[in-house]
């Protein structure tokens, strides 16, 4: 996790809020550093994490996690982390008997239906079991990323339904958190991506939007991060606060600074 980002979000692993849907989105840049942040953040916060990793291999996330101070392999062995490795299991699905339900069952179907099997996987992974051992703090679902589902043929309403059910179960019932990454293609023609992004934005409590600089690539400033707080859980807190910072990604951390205040410029 990046301590500077924690400061901006005013949160610590010990005092993380529960019952929230956090939306990560990126436009014209790679927002996966936010996924690595939240993965290591929630593992350090002693939460049970279900990680639906559709984009990279497990070893990739493990390597980045080690730079940030968590070992995914250890967490998985301890039972703290459940990973659905999309790249591997998408191939497995064609070599299994068809009767067994698979989280990525929609890949086998001609008309990609709904994501109920994927939801069932998440539910089984995060269901709180009281068997006397040290309980984890709260369940957390992390998805990298939802736009991949769109390109695999799932409709945007089906993805929204999946997130709806995860929100109802993980956030509301089990007081956990859901974090998901979506790409904003910026393409006015891509209606499905827009419906997905806007639909998720309406459901989210916190939106972190990483944007590339409008002026293009820069060596010292990799992009801009917009933070938008929506739907506060208590009616008395001020609604809809928004902050904007610029950032630079380094080997083991990300540094944030106010717009125009990059150390390289000053």
């Amino acid at each position: 996790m990046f301590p500077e980002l924690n400061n901006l979000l005013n949160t610590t692993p010990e005092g993380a809020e529960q019952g929230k849907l956090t939306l990560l989105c990126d436009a014209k840049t790679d927002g996966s550093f936010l996924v690595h942040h939240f993965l290591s953040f929630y593992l350090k916060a002693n939460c049970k994490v279900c990680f639906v990793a559709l984009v990279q291999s497990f070893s990739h996330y493990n390597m980045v996690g080690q730079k940030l101070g968590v070992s995914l392999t250890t967490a998985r062995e301890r039972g703290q982390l459940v990973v659905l490795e999309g790249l591997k299991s998408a191939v497995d699905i064609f070599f299994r008997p068809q009767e067994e339900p698979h989280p990525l069952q929609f890949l086998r179907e001609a008309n990609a239906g709904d994501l109920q099997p994927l939801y069932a996987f998440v539910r089984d992974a995060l269901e709180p079991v009281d068997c006397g051992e040290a309980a984890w703090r709260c369940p957390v679902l992390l998805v990298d990323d939802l736009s991949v589902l769109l390109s695999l043929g799932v409709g945007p309403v089906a993805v929204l339904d999946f997130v709806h059910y995860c929100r109802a179960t993980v956030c509301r019932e089990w007081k956990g958190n859901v974090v998901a990454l979506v790409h904003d293609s910026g393409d006015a023609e891509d209606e499905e991506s827009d419906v997905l992004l806007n639909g998720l934005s309406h459901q989210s409590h916190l939106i972190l939007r990483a944007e590339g600089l409008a002026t293009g690539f820069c060596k010292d400033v990799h992009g801009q991060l917009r933070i938008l707080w929506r739907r506060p859980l208590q009616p008395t807190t001020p609604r809809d606060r928004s902050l904007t910072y610029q950032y630079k990604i380094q080997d083991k951390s990300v540094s944030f600074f106010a717009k125009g205040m990059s150390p390289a410029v000053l």
Partner: protein
Amino acid sequence: VTPSEGVRRGTGRILGMLESLLALGGLVLLRDSVEWEGRSLLKALVKKSALCGEQVHVLGCEVSEEEFREGFDSSINNRLVYHDLFRDPLSWSKPGKALPGGPLEALRALDKRTGSGPATIALDSLSWLLHHLPCPILCQTLHALSRQDSCPGDTLPGEQVRVLGLLHEELHGPGPLGALSSLAQTEVTLSGTMGQASAHILYRRPRQRPTLQTQWFSILPDFSLELQVEPLLESQPPSDLHTPSVDPTTHLTFNLHLSKKEREAKDSLTLPFQFSSEKQQALLRPGLGQATSHIFYEPDAYDDLDQEDPDDDLDV
């Protein structure tokens, strides 16, 4: 409510916006966006209806019952019936927690429940219903729900049903938006500027022209509404009285002015296609020594008078 009517009502103006939204009956469409959310206005309208003694039925698809009831005190919560389509709308849970029949039946069931007395139905949200039901069926059900088949004169005031629908504008194309808009008696579009929310309200009163009104407002934590004054734009340009007008003809690299002699010469010039009396005389009476007509030809620089070699490319 025209501004003058509001002024005459005096203190009644503070409640005017919610009351006038609820007064027409039928379908009230609340169009919101990610930046300017509409659920708090929906809850303010629900609270207002409940305080007037009506029963309010909420079809909740997007938020849980606890979250919707949050902020309401017990007197309002007692009048609020929450039909839960949030927990298990598509019957994915193993022990079925879903409402029987799915979303469509839940929507139709509301019609039967509000049989007697004035009632308000809040749909949170129409966007969710539009994603899961075909648009024509949703429109027909809404039409039946808001009892628009009967003429306004036939409906007793006690039987009026009000349907409040929350719609997220960015999620739908112009077709469904237009269809729902044409069903609505009142349409509220939420937007704002500089942190201040505004509502553009379109009233479609029967047998009258549609009226458009803009109100700036804010919703307090207890879901009562407070009207605000339109925020002054800080970056307004200064008025013309204070800025001196700039003469654009100064500091030019070319000459725009004419001297007296140049002006006289210009004025005395006859234009070639202007038919003056001198020209008429010259044409009617050919001058002396001009028995035959003459052609005056001035060759251009690139004109070649050699007929043998018109392209001038023979190497001779």
